[in-house]
């Protein structure tokens, strides 16, 4: 019964035809190949392109932190925002980045609960993206307060009394947001780390140098792959997925409350929570595709992140993009049907006022572009998908800009209307935040497995003790 040892086979034997199902890992790659292909990415020296990419990203990050130092030392006046648009690029960037994070949690948690096994190839990178995006997001609301020591010290964000012994005000959605975003960042990090433990053990066991063995050893906590451990681990993973699912839905709902609970025309709408959540998932999947399409070809991981994965993510874009398009339409309908002249004006002003260009940029990127994905030919053309994913990112940034700036710049009193223009500091801080994001992502590629090795193995037929490829003998 014992199989003869055949290590390092290039292909496992073909399964009988009646059992063939569209595989998640192409070409029947054996388990050892999966380890080599994925762990190999962060074990070998980085390819040549990695260095220029890293230097440019690092430069962007340094630019952003320098401009933040300039902002803190000079004042928020270095940004272009002023009455009446007191929130502009800062909060736009915050909502943009936090939205991007949502795809990571959706892939890792919601698709896990729905038993969508294809998620295993993309969840690691998507979760990393989530954490880095939340880090970028957190910077903007913190630093838009200008004198951050007042915001971070007791009284505003942290639940501690200020100098007058007054506690933070829990009736404000802004404070809910602090709890939502910090919980989201923390739980995403925990979830990511739990997923990493078995793979860090793989890297530890393969490590050549003592430093790598030591560091991967420390972070893998002495993981052995014991089934008594796996039993608790899988339960913990399931519970974390179950906790992350309501969390991810609550985070962007609460972000939308920052607007919806106010009385500003264009913000005060009940559609905001579901519309923001759908938009967040839409933008997040856009970013996942933007990152993973180059990654899979640069590191030759096409057998693990297959064309089917790209196609399925395009379908998510189509679904969430349609919800977003519907929400845009419904907002207009309610503005008319609600009968408030201020609300109606806010929407007319969005589409035909001085910021018409941002509105139509949003519509063309978010409403039109996902509908190309009705066609399989377009869903499976990676270059086309990649280009559309960029448009999704652009469109979703404009969506937040439209919501925030066009609503604020003209509200009830025409004498206090104004026009917001960003300053160079605004622009470069936002550009620099991409530098921070990409720096973190490139370091992630360099040091950690970009795909969940143990999870991908777990969805191959070789992992199934009742499948012929898993060694099952079948009935004769």
């Amino acid at each position, binding site marked *: *019964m*014992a199989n003869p040892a055949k290590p390092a086979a290039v292909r496992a034997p073909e399964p009988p035809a009646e059992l063939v199902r569209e595989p998640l890992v192409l070409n029947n790659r054996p388990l050892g190949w999966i380890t080599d292909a994925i762990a190999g990415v962060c074990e070998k020296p980085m390819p040549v392109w990695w260095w220029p990419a890293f230097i440019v990203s690092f430069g962007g990050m340094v630019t952003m932190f320098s401009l933040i130092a300039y902002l803190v030392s000079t004042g928020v006046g270095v940004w272009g925002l002023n009455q009446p648009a007191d929130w502009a690029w800062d909060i736009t960037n915050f909502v943009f980045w936090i939205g991007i994070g949502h795809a990571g949690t959706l892939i890792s948690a919601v698709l896990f609960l729905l038993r969508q096994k294809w998620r295993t190839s993309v969840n690691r990178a998507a979760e990393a993206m989530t954490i880095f995006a939340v880090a970028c997001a957190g910077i903007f609301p913190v630093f838009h307060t200008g004198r951050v020591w007042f915001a971070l010290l007791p009284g505003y964000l942290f639940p501690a009394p200020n100098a007058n012994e007054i506690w933070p005000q829990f009736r404000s959605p802004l404070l809910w947001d602090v709890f939502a975003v910090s919980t989201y960042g*923390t739980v995403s990090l925990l979830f990511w780390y739990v997923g990493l433990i078995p793979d860090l053990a793989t890297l530890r066991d*393969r490590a050549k140098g003592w430093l790598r063995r030591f560091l991967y050893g420390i972070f893998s906590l002495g993981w052995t792959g014991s089934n008594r451990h796996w039993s608790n681990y899988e339960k913990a993973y399931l519970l974390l997925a179950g906790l992350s699912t309501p969390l991810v839905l609550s985070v962007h709902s609460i972000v939308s409350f920052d607007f919806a609970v106010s009385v500003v025309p264009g913000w005060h709408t009940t559609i905001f929570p579901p519309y923001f959540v759908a938009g967040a998932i839409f933008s997040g999947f856009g970013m996942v595709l933007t990152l993973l399409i180059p990654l899979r070809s640069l590191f030759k991981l096409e057998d693990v992140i297959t064309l089917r994965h790209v196609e399925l993510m395009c379908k998510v874009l189509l679904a969430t993009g349609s919800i977003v398009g519907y929400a845009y339409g419904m907002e207009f309908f309610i503005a008319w049907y609600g009968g408030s002249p201020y609300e109606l004006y806010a929407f007319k002003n969005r589409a035909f006022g001085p910021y018409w260009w941002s509105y139509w940029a949003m519509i063309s990127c978010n409403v039109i572009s996902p509908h190309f994905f009705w066609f399989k030919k377009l869903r499976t053309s990676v270059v086309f998908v990649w280009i559309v994913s960029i448009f999704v990112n652009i469109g979703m940034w404009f969506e937040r800009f439209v919501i925030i700036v066009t609503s604020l710049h003209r509200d009830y009193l025409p004498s206090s209307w104004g026009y917001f223009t960003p300053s160079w500091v605004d622009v470069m801080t936002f550009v620099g935040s991409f530098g921070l994001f990409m720096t973190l992502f490139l370091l992630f590629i360099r040091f950690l497995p970009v795909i969940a090795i143990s999870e991908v193995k777990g969805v191959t037929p070789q992992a199934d*003790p009742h499948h012929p490829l898993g060694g099952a003998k079948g009935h004769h």
Partner: protein
Amino acid sequence: MSSNRSKPHGLLAEFHTAADIFEAAIRCRDAGFTKWDVYTPFPIHGMDEAMGLRKSPVGWFTFCGGFTGFFTGMTMIWYMNKFDYPLVVGGKPLFTPLFAFPVSYEMTILLSAFGTLFGMFFLNKLPRFHNPLFKNERFKKSTDDRFFICIEAADPKFGLEATRAFLTEKCHASVVELVED
């Protein structure tokens, strides 16, 4: 390694396929071993039943965390906004569970997640950096593409030759090695 001959930790048996280890685990369970474990690069579906493990109790830690989180949130907001420094804002009530809900909800999730993570570590006795199995070179493959069973010498049914014969002949292990403590 073998210079300081200490007592054996157990016998380590290597397998090449998921089906082989699955069968072997059932045999070990039926043979009545208690101090033994299966080591695999990924969780094998159905292995808990094959080993005869009870259901994982991690959920209780999650529940305790969540319970603490929710009531901490509610109590904190009540204490800050109603009890310690009541301050009327916008004519709204000083405390209702309604406006306290979002923050308490997030605290529930936060502490549930911590409870889950640390509960899992506690139940698995992790981190554990010293493990006799790490001395075995073959065992490094347990995080790659090999499957192992280790029956510990501390098991009452353990007998060096008898267990070795059991693993080789009954369980069809490809290699059986002694691991020292």
